[in-house]
């Protein structure tokens, strides 16, 4: 493949629409569960292959868009089909593609409406990739909302006891933010149109809009409303524990691994570059909320009885870290944030995968009924140990690299925030060790299925483990990819 073809061929569209094609095929072959499984796996693997191929073949170190597509779409409103991929998108797409493979594999034995399940998982993939690629605000919003429906069904149909409550809560919470986003997008578009006479939703153009401070602040708040709920930042987080807890394994993986990242991505790609002044003013608030969330969620996690809930709250806590990094507003912290997003995706995804496996064997997620798993399933427990420690930020494993970069970045601009944030590491240890304690150590509570990992589970866990270690020990390639785009974003985003 030469450089020219890589520009002319619509790789991004391919990446974006491949999963949807898989969805259609899944629905066509809905009579056969096996066919759907393999279709879903094939599709996700193909997406992974394409994205890895792109990552390898593109000159990822360079700034600017690695790939860019722009077509006419809805002329009446000046909406265009604009996709663009830079380093950050690339990394997040890689993460998406990878986690989706895991999500499909973990749901391999799905007995309840397998075709629909895999179809939804694939739609979700399209939505997420779309969010990471879209550069037209309406297109972005479209994908942003597109993620909701499949997730709603994944939670609501395949979830656990309180699934409907969780699904509705998830839907309403996230939608309430995004509707404000929609209003702001339209208003911004109108303002820009009035100023220049050109009515467009293109990010690059809207960035040039001249706003007075009040307008900017209002728009910024509306934008952030959507993103902050999705992230989720304290105090908008209460949908997350419920959604996570009730979602099926694949849903939790996607939710924690990917959906939360879209919020952060939205901030750095849209909210901050569009409204730099307001963003700057809001940083202390953002940091304060992030810090509160960081501790608050960790504290709550410490008391939870449901292991999924512990991990869910840990997500809130970690995302607090990520937002804190963004609030520090410098290169190192941002790189840390993006890195932490990725490693959090992997570790938390892995934890949810493991919880699903544990649940499969013990039929419970209550800490009281678990314990001593190492005795019957040492391999599984070993992986659990690894991922827990990765999650609590053990150096050399995934989360640490991101966290320390964030801390360094934050400390260099706001020492006090940094110093406080360090405390979060302690509480992360507190709840994670409690989780470990309750699950794998202690006297053995008899699981009804004593089998250790089967081949498929090895296949899921080994890549996750390798990735966790790789991200912890040698995250430099990822950092190199994101460096140039972050520099650009910090300077106000790409033209």
């Amino acid at each position, binding site marked *: 493949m030469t450089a020219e073809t890589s520009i002319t061929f619509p790789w991004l569209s391919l990446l974006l629409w491949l999963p949807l094609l898989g969805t259609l095929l899944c629905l066509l072959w809905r009579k056969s569960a096996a066919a759907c499984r393999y279709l879903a796996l094939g599709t996700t693997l193909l997406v992974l292959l394409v994205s890895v191929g792109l990552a390898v073949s593109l000159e990822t170190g360079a700034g600017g868009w690695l790939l860019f597509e722009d077509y006419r*779409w809805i*002329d*009446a409103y000046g909406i265009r089909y604009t996709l663009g991929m830079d380093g950050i998108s690339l990394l997040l797409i890689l993460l998406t593609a990878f986690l989706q493979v895991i999500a499909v594999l973990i749901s391999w034995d799905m007995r309840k409406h397998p075709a629909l399940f895999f179809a939804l998982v694939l739609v979700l993939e399209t939505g997420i990739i779309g969010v990471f690629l879209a550069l037209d605000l309406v297109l972005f919003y479209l994908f942003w909302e597109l993620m909701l429906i499949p997730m709603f069904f994944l939670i609501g*149909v395949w979830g656990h006891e309180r699934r*409907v409550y969780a699904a509705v809560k998830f*839907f*309403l919470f996230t939608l309430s933010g995004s509707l404000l986003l929609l*209003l702001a997008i339209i208003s911004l578009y109108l303002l820009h149109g009035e100023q220049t006479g050109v009515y467009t939703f293109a990010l690059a153009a809207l960035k040039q809009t001249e706003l007075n401070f009040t307008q900017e602040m209002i728009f910024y708040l509306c934008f952030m409303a959507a993103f902050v709920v999705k992230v989720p930042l304290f105090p908008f987080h209460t949908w997350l524990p419920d959604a996570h807890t009730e979602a099926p394994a694949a849903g939790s993986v996607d939710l924690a691994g990917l959906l939360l990242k879209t919020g952060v991505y939205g901030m750095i790609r849209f909210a901050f570059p569009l409204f730099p002044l307001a963003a700057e003013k809001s940083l202390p608030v953002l940091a304060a909320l992030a810090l509160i969330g960081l501790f608050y969620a960790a504290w709550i996690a410490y008391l939870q009885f449901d292991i999924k809930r512990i991990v869910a709250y840990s997500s809130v806590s970690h995302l607090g870290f990520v937002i804190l990094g963004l609030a520090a507003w410098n290169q190192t912290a941002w790189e840390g944030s993006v890195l932490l997003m990725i490693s959090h995706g992997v570790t938390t995804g892995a934890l949810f995968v493991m919880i699903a496996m544990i649940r499969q064997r013990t039929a419970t997620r209550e800490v009281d009924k678990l314990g001593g798993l190492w005795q019957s399933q040492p391999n599984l427990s070993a992986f659990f140990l690894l991922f827990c420690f990765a999650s609590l930020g053990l150096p050399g494993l995934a989360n640490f690299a991101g966290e320390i970069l964030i801390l360094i970045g934050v400390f260099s601009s706001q020492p006090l925030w940094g110093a406080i944030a360090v405390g979060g590491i302690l509480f992360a240890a507190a709840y994670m060790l409690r989780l470990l304690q309750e699950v794998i150590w202690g006297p053995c509570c008899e699981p009804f299925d004593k089998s250790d990992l089967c081949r498929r589970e090895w296949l899921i866990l080994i890549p996750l483990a390798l990735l966790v270690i790789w991200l912890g020990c040698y995250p430099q390639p990822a950092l190199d990819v994101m460096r140039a785009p972050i520099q650009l974003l910090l300077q106000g985003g790409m033209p």
Partner: protein
Amino acid sequence: MNLLELQSLLPQLILALGATAVLMGGAWLENRRFWLLCGMLLALVAALCAALYEPPLLEVAGMYSTSLYARFCTVVWSLTIAATLLISCRYADLHCFGGGEYAALLLFAAAGMSLLSAASSFVGLFIGLEAFTLVLYILIAFNRTDNRGAEAGLKYLVFGAVATGFLAFGIALIYTATGSFHFAEALAGLQLDGGLRPLGLAGWAMLLVAIGFKISLVPFHLWTPDVYQGAPAPISGVMATAAKGAVLTAFLPLLAGLGDAAGEIKSVLWLLAILTMLGGTFAALPQTNLKRMLAYSSVAHMGYMLVALLIGGEVGGQALLFYLVVYSLATFGAFGVITSWALADEEIQEYAEIRGLGYLHPRRSSALAAFLFSLAGIPPLAGFFGKFGIFHAALRSGYTELAVIGVLTSLISLYYYLRPIIVLFMQDRSAYQLRSGCREEFILLGSCFAAILLFGVYPGPLLELVALVLP
């Protein structure tokens, strides 16, 4: 009345004469399905005719215009009626409808609606409105095995008649003030110093009551849920879509004709829009009956459309028409699904009765889910661009508060749209096993589904069309 005038009204003529023909034929030949399909064909022909045949006159008899706008409306209403006839095939069998009467009445309703939206004088408006309202009285009570149908018919009849009184009184007041029934003259005559004359205001007040009843604005909406619930599902579909749409489309040029003098009326519309959006949304929240929920949802949607209506102009009109089409597709589809689920002795409409149907009848259930999502305005379904257009118009015209309320209510509305979906897909199976749908139903539901998906992903052509036909 000369040949040219008749030619200009060819689609309406086809509908009305066709209706008569079907009516008469139905008396001889008792083949229900044949007459329904026949009627559908006639409606399609009328739609085609309206779409393709360039009428020789711009205005017929000083009462009806044949502008692009009117033709567009004719096409839409004819198609709706065709769709109704198509979806009623099995339903009519099930409830032993008189095939000829049913088809004829619906065809005549189409004629009435198309005349209404083509009206260019108050006489035409009155006659067009009455034409299809009269037919609806009958159609609502058409199902003679159902007590509820009779009750619904009664309710609609009483309110309809009262509303007719208001409409007529309003027209009379306007006529008193201006001495003309023709829109252009009457509306021009009403204006005084950039505002409306008091008599004109009084007339408009009466008109608004009548219109408020027809398109069920709060506080004139109370009949809506009862009638929708009691009427046969296909008829509820027509009432929620075409019947309301025809009134709205007739109202749009009327309001536009007032120009800047419409300030007071717009302020009332502003109030009504807010009341309607909030009232419809909140009242729909606790519903546990699919048809009642859709009724209240249609009330709320009328609120949105009222926003577009009062904004008017190119932006508002475009948003209104687009929204109307998209809303009609989804609402009609939803009622279509209910139609297709109907049993011989009753319709399945309580949530408790559709528990877990999603996996038993996946295609119809997913279609219903898609329609509801579209109504909720979730992308990538067409409802999203509908709402987008409304909010866009509202913000563009400075009605920020309406946009904000609209956003708020569409957020709340999500809950009641989700409830049936939850019941369908996320609850365990109840005891019902419904019959599998027939081909006609699937064709129709499939095309509705495809349309809302298509317009959700690529609304460009429809937007352009709508912009083209606006008066």
